């Protein structure tokens, strides 16, 4: 069953078409990714799906409710972790959650129960009475994640939730999100321009560029389009017949002493190939990545002009303020 349906959704800002006729269905319980470079239209799509922006044309439904005509029902059904910090840093973690419960009309007893639950989920119970200004960037993200889950939404939107966090904190966030999503059985829509995150987490993803969906499938299927991993060998006298005889290689390209092999799974067959091909000078293994997929569909690389100013700068400021 589709929990999110977009039908030819377009968003125009003056002379810029940020989202260009997107049609998409996201299935209930799915971990779905919107992958694309900055400015591709991911955040605009998300702002429309969360009722903060009105589509210029097209219709969309979340949990069966029309975005434009039934925004309140949509809002009740969704939780969001925004790209920039969205908690009040003069309040404590607990107070931010209490405020959220009040905004979502939760009865007091349920609210307090859920605050305890979600604080425990993101390991912030000990720090709940600390002022958010004194949290690290990663802690603040976790608080906002807890908040997004607190009213038990059907859909959780994560807008670049790890942007600007150091690799360790990024990893930390995902160790919370993965089991959470399984436990709370909700649909997750993630926007990211980190390919590895999308690859690892998403059941399906849409690659989006210049406001259009250019590819839509599971990461594995998307990568299969490119044929598979490549193994490049520096070998003067390759025994290509023996390699072919292995039945593991889809494609062989030879240019003098350089042999390029396309295989389904490099990890599984590298050892056999090395034994068959003869003495090698060097080996280069290039597992196919979503970067390659992106390149394949768009003809250009993800221009990773990551303007990480927002989060990084701010959390740095908060951290330095505490020292």
């Amino acid at each position, binding site marked *: 069953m589709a929990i999110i349906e977009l039908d030819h959704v377009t968003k125009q800002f003056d002379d810029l078409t940020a989202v260009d006729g997107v049609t998409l269905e996201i299935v209930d319980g799915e971990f779905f990714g919107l992958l694309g470079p900055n400015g591709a239209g991911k955040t605009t799509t998300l702002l429309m799906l969360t009722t903060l*922006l009105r589509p210029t044309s097209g219709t969309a439904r979340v949990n069966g409710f029309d975005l434009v005509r*039934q*925004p*309140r029902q949509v809002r009740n059904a969704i939780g969001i972790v925004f790209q*920039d910090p*969205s908690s009040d840093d003069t*309040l404590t973690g607990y*107070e931010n959650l209490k405020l959220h419960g009040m905004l979502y*009309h939760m009865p007091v007893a349920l609210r307090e129960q859920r605050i305890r639950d979600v604080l425990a989920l993101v390991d912030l119970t000990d720090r709940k009475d600390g002022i958010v200004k004194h949290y690290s960037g990663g802690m603040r993200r976790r608080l906002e994640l807890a908040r997004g889950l607190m009213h038990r939404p059907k859909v959780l939107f994560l807008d670049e939730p790890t942007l600007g966090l150091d690799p360790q904190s990024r990893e930390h966030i995902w160790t919370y999100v993965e089991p959470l999503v399984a436990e709370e059985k909700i649909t997750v829509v993630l926007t990211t321009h980190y390919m590895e995150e999308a690859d690892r987490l998403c059941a399906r993803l849409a690659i989006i560029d210049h406001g259009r969906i250019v590819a839509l499938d599971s990461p594995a299927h998307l990568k299969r389009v490119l044929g598979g991993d490549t193994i490049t060998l520096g070998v003067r006298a390759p025994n290509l017949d023996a390699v072919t005889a292995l039945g593991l290689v889809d494609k062989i390209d030879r240019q003098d002493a350089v042999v390029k092999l396309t295989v389904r799974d490099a990890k599984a067959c590298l050892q056999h190939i090395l034994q068959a091909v003869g003495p090698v000078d060097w080996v280069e293994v290039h597992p196919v990545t979503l970067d390659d997929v992106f390149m394949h569909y768009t003809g250009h690389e993800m221009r990773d002009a990551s303007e990480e100013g927002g989060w990084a700068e*701010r959390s740095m400021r908060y951290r330095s303020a505490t020292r």
Partner: protein
Amino acid sequence: MGRTIHAISLRDEIGGIGAIWYREWKVFLREKSRIVASIVNPILWLLVFGGGLGRNVSIPGTEYQAFIFPGILAQAVLFSSIFFGVYIVWDRKIDFLKEVLVAPISRTAVFIGKVIGGATDSMVQSLILLGLGAGLGAAGIIPGLHPRLLPFAAALPILAVTTASLVSVGLIIGAMMESPEGFQLVSSFLLFPTFFLSGALFPLDRLPAWLTPLVLIDPLTYSVDALRHVILDNAHFPLGLDLGVMAGFLAIVVWMGSFAFRRMKV
């Protein structure tokens, strides 16, 4: 976004207003410098300006220092109320505003909650200033200001309506401004004329002809006059007129404010 009015329950709206107020109140309690700053300036006006000028100026019916006390109360409320609007600009600078706007409450509720939040701050400030005024009056430091419970208490609803209107104005400016600097610019352009034209520092009798219309279109004029009614029993317009204008102004800016919030970009 307000077409599904039928689905909105009044209880939810009041809950939403309460949530916004809760946040503003917590922030207010935590930022004590705000309140200290809002008390120091009015005291300077009363003691230094009023005390210095009061020796050389005579107002029919009362001492000058006591005469400007209602005006300074209104001024304090004017500045703190309008400046409250800048916090909406800050809310937008981080994504906190989105968190509020994506909640299942109407933008009108967000606006009303903000108005009540800002008005609460100003009323705490007003209570302190009324207390200080009473103390300074009783001690003879502000000659002619006689602290009496009922007139001082009657000033509170007048100040409440005044601050609610002015917070609305501040929020309307805040809803339209992208940067705190822009807010600062527009609001200071508004604050000083509003203050000087309100008659906070001078009586409204015998004004130059060119000045009279400007004073009459200044909404703060009527708050100052109403405050003079209750605190000094020495005013220019009938109290009914003052209250009528104040109520009308409040209605207009609240309507404009909820409109501005519905139109506000995230």
